[in-house]
């Protein structure tokens, strides 16, 4: 089982508490984990990666085992500790802006 920890707003949106556990077929890559996550929770489609390009949204990051996987190829194997469920994959809202002073 793969464990995925979502940021507060996405947990609220998906109506889950704590880490999400997913069954992901081998080979366990970031793309496959996100595919499964979006299959289980369609409301998360578009909130982590773009609908059409599947590129990571700019102000989100993927961390695991004290590493930043945000710029890794999405078809790379995830760290073994994530693949075996010992460590979670963390989806993090970046400490950055993202809110434009729009509307006016």
């Amino acid at each position, binding site marked *: 089982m793969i464990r995925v920890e979502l940021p507060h707003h996405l947990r609220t*949106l998906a109506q889950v508490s704590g880490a999400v556990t997913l069954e992901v077929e081998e080979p366990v890559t970031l793309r496959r984990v996100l595919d499964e996550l979006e299959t289980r929770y*369609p409301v998360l*489609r578009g*909130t982590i990666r773009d609908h059409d390009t599947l590129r990571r949204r700019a102000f*989100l990051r993927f961390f695991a085992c004290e590493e930043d996987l945000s710029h890794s190829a999405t078809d790379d194997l995830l760290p073994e500790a994530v693949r075996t469920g010992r460590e979670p994959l963390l989806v993090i*809202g970046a400490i950055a802006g993202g*809110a*434009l002073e729009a509307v006016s």
Partner: protein
Amino acid sequence: MSRVRVLVGTRKGAFVLTADGKRESWEVSGPFFAGWEIYHMKGSPVNPERIYVSQTSGWFGQVIQRSDDGGKTWNAPGGGVQKSPEGFPVGESNRFSYDTSEETGRPLTTHQWYDGTQHPWEFKRVWHLEPSLRDAEAVYAGVEDAALFRSGDGGHSWQELAALRGHGTGPQWQPGAGGMCLHTIVLDPKDPERIYIAISAAGAFRTDDGGKRWKPINKGLRSESIPDQDAEVGHCVHHIAMNPRRPGVLFMQKHWDVMRSDDAGDTWREVSGNLPTDFGFAIDVHAHEPETVYVAPITSDSLHFPMEGKLQVWRSRTGGDEWEAMTKGLPQKDCYVNVLRDAMAVDSMDECGIYFGTTGGQVYVSPDGGEHWRPIVHDLPAVLSVEVQTLT
């Protein structure tokens, strides 16, 4: 007895304010979608219990929410765990993909960027949701980068009305300070094929055939901030309002200038008259008096707050040109908030109520057409939008 439900979108969530017809004692519920920007929420005129919400975030993108019980409970249409007959997940309520198909006229894919180069369209967020006047399942969405989408299935899926972007002037459109947004959608109650929209900073546009063909309707607008001051497009229209009983007459708050059209937007004339400043964002029309118009003057494009710290709504009972300040109950010193373009609304009670929200988190009501004001709430997050439902 009738009652009112005020839908308030803020920088940090949605709120629903309800009162009976006296509009004196208010119940406040929310925040809904706490922490998210709620650019707009609006109820269906066909089924007032159906409310559509634009929930957006710089981090997590766009979500459409919907209530079918007047705001008590919410769901993202299509966002639940569902499978197609083939076993694939379905439901993509937050998917707004620009149309690039040849069948729909191969819409242009670039617009003018701040540096004068051409830039591809990129979806940012939904600014405005306009439910159909005839079908509770149908709703229009005005988005940034500027385009118009429609859902015919209650917000489950969205299709672009691509002929707007593709009609010819698209490459001349450019973003205003708030982005290149389609922020205003006005549906003609008498002619279901006629839709007005407005884009910052491109101007106003109209279709007379349900969105197949569009034309700019900016004749009479003059804008000092563009090289050709009366160009066909390029004007920073802030908002357009209409009295449903007289759909051919439109009122516009432009970046500067308050304008009026008596021919469905074909031509405009300035009606700023004696306003102390004709810069502003919000404008609306009295529910029962088509010549009574309200604006919230803002000092200037450099100073986005009321003049001299005095919060004022100005009313014209002559369809423009002659205006009077309506200030009773509004702060008349040390007030430096803004009133944004979608943050003014009117109810349709016998005595028309006027509402507006501020970036300081106040929502004010005047239950007597602007004569007297009082705050419903003082301390919400910055108010982005205000809509009112009159319920029986």
